[in-house]
């Protein structure tokens, strides 16, 4: 019991340090109010400097993100065949239409399953690889570099490499399987195999991101925590679950949050591999929004799908951060 308390408090103290909230430093620094009363102009100057630093980022974000998002949300209330068509205001009709379409919910759950499956696998495999690469061994630097290769490749290149490897007629994988007497497999030909292939390629491509982030965080875990745990008789697994993971909890939470957002919105891998087929089995919301907007000339329907996806994702992030706050609640 006391061991657990000790470990938890050690881990919490460390968390505070890596979050930039080192207790000693926090105590030493004068509170903002004191500084303000001691010299209002300094605070004023700091604020102006702060705004000045923030301004370029805000301007760029507003111009390239917020305005286009607002424009897209605006389009979702209109009916139009193309961006050059004269739009007709239809209120919430597009939302009613897309939300009452079973295809929408099919795509929604497809996206959810894809995001959950790929994030879980990326995190588990990524952490496992990071732990291996954290161990000292000969050639570690080279192996660390090589482990990043899939992440460095542009997505389109990574997908086409795998599409050729998985090709049922000319692919290396089926050729190897045939050599051992296995039958030809159409890796993208059935819903289950298509999903498995997409998830595999997504995990292969993005796991190095988790690995490198986690590996970098591992460098910050003080060695004395492991030494103390060893002295208390903790084995490698106990060290992982009671020292490493609690200490790196904030990093892990951010990794999961970022990867979930990325994977839920991931368009290119699925588009390049199956375009949503076969039998629409791999169609998810980003693909559905694209198809509606650009393939079926339904600008309002497509932007309504994109807007609802944005709302769901924002709500999901809010719930996630409520359940797993990045900073410890004392």
């Amino acid at each position, binding site marked *: 019991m006391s061991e657990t308390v000790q470990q938890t408090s050690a881990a919490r103290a460390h968390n505070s340090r890596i979050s930039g909230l080192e207790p000693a430093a926090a105590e030493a620094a004068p509170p903002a109010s004191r500084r303000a009363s001691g010299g209002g102009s300094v605070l004023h100057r700091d604020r102006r400097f702060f705004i000045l630093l923030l301004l370029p980022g805000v301007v760029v974000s507003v111009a390239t993100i917020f305005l286009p998002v607002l424009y897209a949300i605006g389009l979702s209330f209109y009916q139009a065949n193309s961006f050059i068509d004269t739009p007709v205001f239809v209120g919430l009709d597009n939302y009613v239409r897309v939300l009452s379409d079973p295809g929408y919910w099919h795509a929604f759950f497809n996206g959810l399953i894809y995001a959950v499956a790929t994030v879980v696998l990326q995190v588990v495999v990524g952490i496992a690889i990071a732990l291996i690469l954290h161990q000292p061994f000969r050639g570690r630097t080279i192996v660390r570099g090589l482990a990043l290769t899939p992440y460095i490749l542009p997505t389109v290149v990574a997908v086409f490499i795998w599409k050729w490897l998985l090709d049922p007629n*000319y692919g290396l994988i089926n050729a190897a399987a045939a050599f051992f007497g296995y039958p030809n497999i159409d890796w993208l030909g059935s819903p289950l195999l298509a999903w498995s292939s997409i998830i595999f390629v997504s995990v292969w491509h993005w796991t190095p991101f988790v690995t490198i982030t986690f590996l970098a965080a591992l460098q910050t875990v003080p060695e004395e925590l492991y030494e103390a745990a060893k002295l208390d008789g903790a084995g490698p697994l106990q060290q992982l679950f009671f020292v490493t993971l609690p200490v790196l909890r904030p990093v892990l939470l951010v990794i999961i949050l970022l990867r979930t957002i990325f994977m839920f919105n991931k368009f290119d891998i699925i588009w390049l591999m*199956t*375009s949503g087929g076969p*039998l629409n089995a791999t169609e998810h919301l980003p693909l559905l929004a694209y198809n509606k907007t650009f393939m*079926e*000339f339904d600008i309002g329907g497509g932007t309504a799908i994109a807007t609802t996806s944005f709302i769901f994702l924002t709500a999901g992030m809010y719930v996630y951060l409520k359940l797993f706050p990045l900073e410890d609640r004392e």
Partner: protein
Amino acid sequence: MKQPKLIGISRRSFLGTATAGAATLAMPGILRAQTELRYLNHETDPRTVAFLRTLAADYEKEAGVRVRIETEPDPWVKLTTSIKAGKPYDFMSLPSITDPVLLAKSDAIVPVTDIVKEQGIEDFGPRSLSQFKDDIWGYPYDYNSVCLYYRSDWLSEKGLRVPTDWDSFIAVLQTLHDPDNRRYGYTQTLATGGDSSWANTGFLWSNDVRFYDEKWDVILDTPDIKKRTAEALAFIKKTADFSPPGLMSAKLKEVIANFVSGTAAVAPYAGRLMSNIQDNAPELADKFVLGPYVRPKGGQGVVTGGVDVFAIGKTDKVEEAKKLLRWMIKNDKITDFQLTLPLHYQPVQFSSYQNKRWSSNPLVEKYKDKLAVMRSFLDEKETKIDGIQYQGPNYSPNQGRLYNSDLISSMYQNVVAGKMSPEEAVDLGAAKIRELTDKV
């Protein structure tokens, strides 16, 4: 007389320097004053792109007008967003006969009726002109007719002839299908998306399937058409038994790879496949023949059209852009353009086939038997040209929506995978068409 000096510089030097400086400052304005046409091109083959660069240089030399070419394989989004952004293109090539009509409805292009009429409307092959509101909105240059390619050497080996109806077609596939030796009867596209909508609908049209009546009412599930469509779907399911693995995800590139590599005996495609054979397997040049899609009981053949056109944007340079198109026609540059890939680009004008420069091209001569078959597709008595873009009473966004949607692929995939009967798939298709049809 001695020149007075201004701050130690002679007046002449001062004036000379000032003039040079002013000219330098004015240079961007002078350059801007030169007319520039923006040309959005969707043909991506390096030979065509290189030709267009030469064409631009020649035109600039001759007419003093700069032509800036941008290449984008799928130009629709770039085109519409450029118009929305206030930077429309002056000249463009478009991959569908319906695209110019959509742009015309939005007042984004101008008609080319006068230019087509100068050539004579009767010189253009059937169903090649984008007509809307008594005007023609695109100048066609490539038919892109999807027909059937047969390995003639394999047919001869088995004592077979090019099939003439559905039964003999299946018999040919059955005889040539030898999966143990990695030789398959028929490669086709079944993947989700436009490839299947264009390159694998011939058997629907060969059984006279129609989507709409003259009032845009969907007739796919009316008794007669439903029966015809279900028959065509059942026939496609039969052909699927002779296809190489990977059918559900097969796109056009798989069709090319399967035929060119000798994996499949029969393939549907347009001239691009012939061009690919010449580039990658020239030894097959005399080992294949072409034919239209066959009807259930024989008779007039059918091909699926996919006309490519040039169009003129409604910008402040309409007249300059029209001049460029006229210059291309007058100087036979459209023939030169087609000759960059003579086996790929299927001329739309009857006169092109009489053009000496075209017919004396070494590749045209080498493949003249095949190109003569393609030329015969322009004869309406022999062949019907059909396709999704020809469904309905007139060109509209509806055809574009159906073409890009998963309508065709989902009907085919459900039947081939055994998830639905052909009749159920027709009902699914009809519902999809209704969902995507805008009667307004």
